[in-house]
């Protein structure tokens, strides 16, 4: 089968209806720089066939969920009036390969989505538009009557399922970045499912079921007939009954085993999907936590800055006030010194008494002599004259400045003076404190600037993630938490299912052993008439023989396919690694665990291989699986992949591309690994059939691309 062409109209970044790629058989490469429309092209393939797009973090999102984001922004921006209609469509033309009894058929698969303008408000707001349900049509010429047919709805879906079976899709349609989880070879079921699809192994299972059913029925009839001829019919029939009981138990346990295995497969698939989603979402909680952490650090730094700033302002205003009042305070201090000196001089001054009053020296002399030395009259002790003289003692007039009020003022003046001294001593300490704060503040502001840069980097990463995934950080982190919960529940369920499956297997083994024992006992019972031929017994010999061999064949074919996949994968791997000496060893599929290993010549696992190396091994196995599908089923599918080689270096990338050019009848590889200046050189390579270059542009000449003007273009370089 070949994809002949794809046409896009107003699909995401593809504006208008001029975008068409005509593919050839062999290797078709579509390249372009980041954001040139490569992934949107991959989405277009997926959307036209499945009505959905894989949005990392949201998983599969249908047209309904995508809404107007599916429609080109420039087309929406150019809409001029209410009721304007915008048509978004993708059309692919597929040619099936002619077979023995049928001719090649050309199918035109088209999905169309219409939106109409409801109001002239913001054209990028989903409420501004009325959306509709997309329509799917498949046009082809009926081989029986040569009529031109148009299938719609379920009929169209069935045609698509026949053309691109959903079982094989994961191996032929994948995005490189999701490869690790999409195809998880650590999961035993992954290879088993691939083998089931590409091979006849499921047919052996059906064959085994049919022959086992026949064998069971025939053996039962045979035992019934032999029982009639038995010398000890009672014992023989009792043993038959027990065998039948065990057979019924085996039948029930097999059914339970099959049911549980089916559920286990479903749960394992779900776990794979959840794991893939968790892996794809891992950036969200990481960035979210990083952002919260940096924001908390920033809050702490800002609080420190604010605290220091307030402190500094207070200190600065104190110093400023101190400086401002320095002169006045100094003057006050000088005056206080003068005041103090004056006071001291007054205290030290010998106060003069009035001239009519003798001094205390004379008075004391008069009291001692008991004689008034002014009038020369006696003044005996305790006489009136004596007391009159004594009253003249200490008659000094106290100066006004020594009153209690003035003493109080004096005390306060002294305190004020002491404070002034302290304040002037504080000039220097406040100044040093301000300088220290300034330094601390500068350091914090520098630290804040570093943290602001950090938050900018995280915000840029968050923006990039939003552009890439279409979901914001909190939604992504929330989905991650939910998925983690789902994973834990599924993991528990898978463990329980595995335990039950092991129990059923043990019961089966036990019942089979008991049947063998019972049959052995039956064989020892003699028959009454040995000449009677029991036809069922004869038939059972054939059914038993085939039943035993077919279950062996199923296992052998399965092992053979693993060998073939391993061998074919190693052929691809050698071809690619021969140009890159940093990758060595070979691919080995562990037959017990089905893990894909990189081993040396002695079969020992190499320890030093990186993600790119492992991805390459996976891609080689995928190539082998698809290549064997082509062999076994006589069918070929186009291989379509976006960014398969993002983990490989240049040499390995081109070796890989050369390898797939030889594996698939048609491959369409979307890659960013070919730069614009390499295109001329690359197009010369023989193994590349077609080469297309995608570029984002606008018609305004603005260097900066914005959603209102920019659109992707497709240029055929080699076709």
């Amino acid at each position, binding site marked *: 089968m070949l994809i002949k062409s794809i046409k896009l109209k107003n699909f995401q970044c593809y504006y208008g209806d001029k975008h068409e790629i005509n593919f050839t058989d062999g290797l078709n490469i579509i390249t372009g720089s980041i954001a040139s429309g490569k992934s949107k092209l991959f989405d277009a393939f997926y959307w036209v066939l499945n009505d959905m797009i894989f949005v990392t973090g949201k998983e599969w999102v249908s047209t309904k969920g995508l809404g107007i984001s599916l429609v080109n922004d420039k087309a929406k921006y150019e809409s001029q009036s209410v009721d304007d209609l915008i048509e978004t469509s993708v059309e692919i033309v597929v040619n099936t390969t002619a077979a023995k009894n049928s001719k090649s058929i050309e199918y035109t698969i088209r999905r169309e989505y219409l939106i109409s303008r409801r109001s002239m408000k913001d054209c990028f707001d989903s409420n501004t538009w009325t959306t509709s349900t997309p329509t799917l049509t498949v046009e082809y010429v009926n081989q029986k009557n040569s009529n031109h047919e148009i299938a719609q709805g379920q009929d169209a879906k069935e045609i698509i399922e026949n053309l691109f079976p959903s079982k094989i899709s994961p191996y032929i349609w994948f995005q490189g970045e999701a490869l690790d989880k999409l195809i998880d070879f650590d999961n035993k079921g992954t290879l088993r499912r691939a083998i089931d699809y590409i091979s006849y192994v499921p047919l*052996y299972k059906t064959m085994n*079921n*049919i*022959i086992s059913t*026949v064998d069971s029925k025939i053996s039962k009839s045979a035992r019934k007939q032999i029982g009639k001829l038995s010398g000890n019919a009672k014992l023989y029939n009792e043993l038959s009954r027990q065998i039948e009981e065990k057979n019924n138990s085996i039948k029930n346990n097999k059914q339970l085993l099959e049911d549980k295995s089916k559920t286990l497969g479903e749960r394992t698939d779900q776990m794979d999907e959840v794991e893939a989603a968790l892996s794809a979402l891992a950036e969200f909680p990481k960035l979210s936590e990083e952002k919260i952490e940096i924001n908390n650090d920033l809050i702490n730094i800002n609080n420190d800055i604010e605290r220091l700033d307030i402190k500094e302002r207070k200190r600065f205003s104190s110093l400023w006030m101190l400086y401002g009042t320095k002169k006045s305070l100094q003057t006050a201090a000088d005056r206080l010194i003068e005041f103090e000196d004056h006071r001291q001089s007054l205290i030290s001054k010998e106060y003069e008494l009035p001239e009519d009053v003798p001094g205390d020296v004379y008075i004391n002399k008069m009291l001692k002599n008991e004689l008034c030395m002014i009038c020369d009259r006696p003044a005996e002790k305790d006489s009136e004259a004596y007391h009159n003289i004594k009253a003249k003692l200490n008659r000094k007039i106290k100066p006004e400045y020594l009153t209690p009020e003035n003493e109080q003022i004096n005390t306060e003046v002294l305190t004020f003076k002491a404070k002034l001294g302290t304040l002037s001593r504080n000039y220097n300490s406040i100044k040093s404190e301000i300088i220290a704060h300034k330094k601390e503040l500068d350091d914090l502001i520098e630290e804040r600037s570093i943290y602001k840069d950090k938050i900018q980097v995280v915000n840029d990463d968050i923006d990039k993630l939003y552009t890439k995934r279409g979901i914001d950080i909190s939604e992504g982190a929330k989905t991650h938490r939910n998925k983690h919960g789902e994973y834990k529940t599924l993991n528990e369920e898978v463990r329980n299912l595995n335990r039950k499956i092991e129990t059923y297997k043990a019961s089966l083994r036990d019942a089979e052993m008991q049947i063998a024992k019972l049959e052995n006992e039956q064989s020892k019972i003699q028959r009454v008439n040995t000449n009677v031929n029991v036809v069922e017994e004869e038939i059972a010999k*054939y059914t038993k023989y*085939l039943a035993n061999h077919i279950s*062996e064949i199923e296992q*052998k074919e399965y092992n053979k396919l693993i060998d073939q996949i391993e061998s074919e994968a190693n052929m691809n791997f050698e071809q690619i690694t021969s140009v890159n000496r940093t990758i060595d060893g070979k691919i080995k599929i562990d037959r017990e665990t089905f893990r894909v290993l990189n081993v040396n010549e002695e079969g020992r696992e190499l320890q030093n291989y990186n993600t790119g190396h492992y991805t390459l091994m996976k891609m080689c196995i995928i190539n082998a699986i698809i290549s064997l599908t082509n062999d076994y089923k006589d069918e070929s599918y186009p291989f379509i992949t976006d960014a398969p080689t993002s983990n490989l270096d240049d040499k390995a990338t081109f070796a890989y591309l050369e390898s797939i050019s030889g594996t698939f009848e048609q491959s369409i590889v979307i890659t960013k690994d070919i730069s614009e200046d390499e295109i001329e050189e690359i197009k010369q390579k023989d193994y590349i059939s077609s080469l297309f270059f995608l570029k984002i542009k606008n018609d305004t000449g603005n260097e900066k691309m914005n959603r209102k003007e920019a659109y992707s273009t497709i240029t055929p370089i080699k076709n």
Partner: protein
Amino acid sequence: MKKLTINDRLLESITRATSNFSDTSLDKTTLLEISKKLVDYVIEVDSSHTKESGAATSLENDLYHKIQ
């Protein structure tokens, strides 16, 4: 070279695994005929389990017819 059909490939795997039924004294022609029938029924069933019991009954009848 004639391209092998799925029936051819399935039958071939049985005869190859048993070395053309050399590991048994059962009648080889009968074994080959039963195997052919079995393969035909399997292709008809084509992994649709609902048809398996019908295929088993048909094969049982074939065996009676062949061995009686």
